[in-house]
């Protein structure tokens, strides 16, 4: 049923439809509304689950680790510093190959402290061994959450569904919420073959020595590579059953005949589509490609989608400080490895909630078009000419209160 609903509330509804048995979370802006709503559902009896309000994100991640190891379907959500505080456990969840599903309400990472959106938090965890899916709209956030449980449980890998904080979590827009019977038909009850069972005691997470640790890591890597197929299958069967698709590994827009393609991630794609339409109306052959799946990295699909372009630009909301854009580096590597010689320009923007306006996006297209044979390495979109001093040096205008 279509409802005009806040993104966080819609995600909470999607979680409820997936029938989780354990939810553990610690609130942090901009994730709060999701877990607040879930806690309310449990308190009201609308969702039969154990809701564990933990003392930290580290504990929340530990609770879902244990719950899934014991065979329960579980959910958590976090963002920013909270996600980073989970880090140790997130690596363990992945290494133990536990099908946890979580939402990251993407937010900048301090310092300086900033509650607004970028994707530094989840991108910093790209090597944690989780599947990472990034969504463009609240409809896609709902649909992807449901797909995530199916992917996680089929692959025995955890899935992080990343949605832009505020731009999606706090936006009220129309979302078609599936009914319970539809979701039940798509997502069978959780069956986890390696469930801990007191009747048949076993160790989960035992030590590993130099003679087999490397093979465990290799197996983990191969499992993520194999997950590419499951992610595509989950999207296809979702489309069959629910009549909606948002792409699978990638989501392309006007790329077939495009000479120049802009690659991006997340909710910025909406404005990018509008800009592509405007530029095409002026006769420019441009297109856009959204990376929906960042881990496993969809190398083959990406090369296929970009190999016809004369120029590629990557616009991303995160940075590997000291290197440059994260995603642009991976796109360049994928194309280079495939022998596709197309210049790839790097743009970092939208950090800490700076709005990537249609004008900024049009300027990115223009800068890429005007660049010479040597690609733009790392351009900071809309950055001021004179950067500010490091945070401690700026004068304090008013006492800092407010959320962390």
């Amino acid at each position: 049923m279509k409802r005009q609903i806040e993104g966080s509330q819609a995600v909470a509804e999607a979680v409820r439809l997936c029938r989780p048995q354990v939810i553990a979370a610690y609130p942090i802006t901009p994730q709060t509304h999701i877990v607040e709503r879930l806690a309310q559902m449990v308190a009201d009896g609308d969702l039969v689950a154990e809701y564990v309000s933990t003392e930290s994100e580290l504990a929340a991640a530990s609770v879902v680790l244990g719950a899934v190891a014991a065979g329960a379907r579980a959910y958590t959500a976090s963002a920013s510093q909270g996600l980073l505080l989970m880090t140790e456990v997130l690596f363990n969840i992945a290494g133990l190959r536990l099908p946890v599903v979580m939402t990251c309400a993407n937010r900048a990472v301090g310092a300086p402290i900033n509650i607004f959106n970028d994707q530094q938090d989840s991108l910093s965890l790209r090597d944690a061994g989780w599947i990472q899916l990034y969504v463009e709209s609240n409809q896609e956030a709902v649909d992807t959450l449901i797909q995530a449980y199916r992917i996680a449980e089929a692959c025995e890998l955890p899935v992080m569904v990343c949605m832009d904080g505020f731009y999606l979590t706090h936006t009220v827009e129309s979302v078609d919420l599936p009914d319970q019977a539809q979701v039940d038909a798509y997502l069978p009850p959780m069956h986890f073959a390696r469930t801990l069972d007191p009747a048949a005691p076993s160790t989960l997470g035992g030590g590993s020595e130099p003679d087999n640790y490397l093979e465990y890591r290799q197996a983990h890597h191969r499992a993520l590579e194999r997950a590419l197929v499951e992610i595509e299958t989950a999207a296809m069967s979702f489309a069959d059953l629910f009549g909606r698709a948002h792409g699978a590994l990638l989501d392309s827009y006007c790329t077939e005949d495009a000479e120049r393609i802009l690659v991006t991630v997340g909710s910025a794609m909406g404005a990018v589509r509008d800009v592509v339409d405007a530029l095409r109306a002026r006769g420019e052959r441009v297109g856009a490609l959204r990376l929906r799946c960042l881990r496993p990295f969809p190398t083959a699909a990406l090369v296929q989608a970009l190999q016809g372009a004369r120029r590629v630009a990557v616009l991303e909301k995160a940075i590997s400080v000291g290197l440059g854009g994260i995603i642009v580096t991976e796109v360049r590597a994928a194309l280079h490895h495939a022998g596709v010689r197309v210049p790839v320009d790097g743009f970092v923007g939208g950090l800490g909630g700076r709005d990537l306006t249609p004008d900024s996006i049009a300027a990115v297209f223009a800068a890429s078009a005007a660049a010479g044979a040597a690609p733009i390495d790392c351009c900071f979109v809309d950055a001021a000419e004179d950067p500010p001093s490091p945070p401690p040096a700026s004068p304090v205008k008013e006492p800092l209160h407010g959320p962390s």
Partner: protein
Amino acid sequence: MPVMRQVRFHGRGGQGAVSAAALLSMAAFEDGFESQAFPKFGSERRGAPVEAYVRISDAPIRSHNQVYTPDAVVILDATLLRAEPVLQGLREGGLALINADAAPALRTEPTGCRWLAVPADRISVAQLGRPFPNTALLGALAAATGWVDLPALETVVRRQLGGKGEHVVSANLALLRQGFELGQDRRAT
């Protein structure tokens, strides 16, 4: 060509600017439009300037950007006129709806904006005993623009405020209607 209307709300934390934007988008949805509402929080504390945005369209809305060229601005606190660029980007002939007894006399008037002053705090205090200006201003906005219907606003106010008790619902419905009437009466201002 799809038609897109954009509204920007300026308020202070606690005045209900964010709720007003959500209610407006829900009313537009009730009327069969595509709509989107979202807040821009500053430091999330009572009294701090807050912005909220609404888009209403007859076609799907893809952008999640802030609103830079509104067709209407709704100013919940007149002191924001001195503190924030509340009229920035307002479209020529656009509506500036303000919670006040009279339109302000500004030294730098933007090009051809249409002022509508509604004493929303005053009528809210009379109804609720406290200044919650948002529903009266929504009624006035509906009357002055015709972008949403009064019945649609009434439906969403009943649904969204239902949990707060019958007194709050009926007072807010009265404020919606009072705002709507004032919006009709003062259209020419």
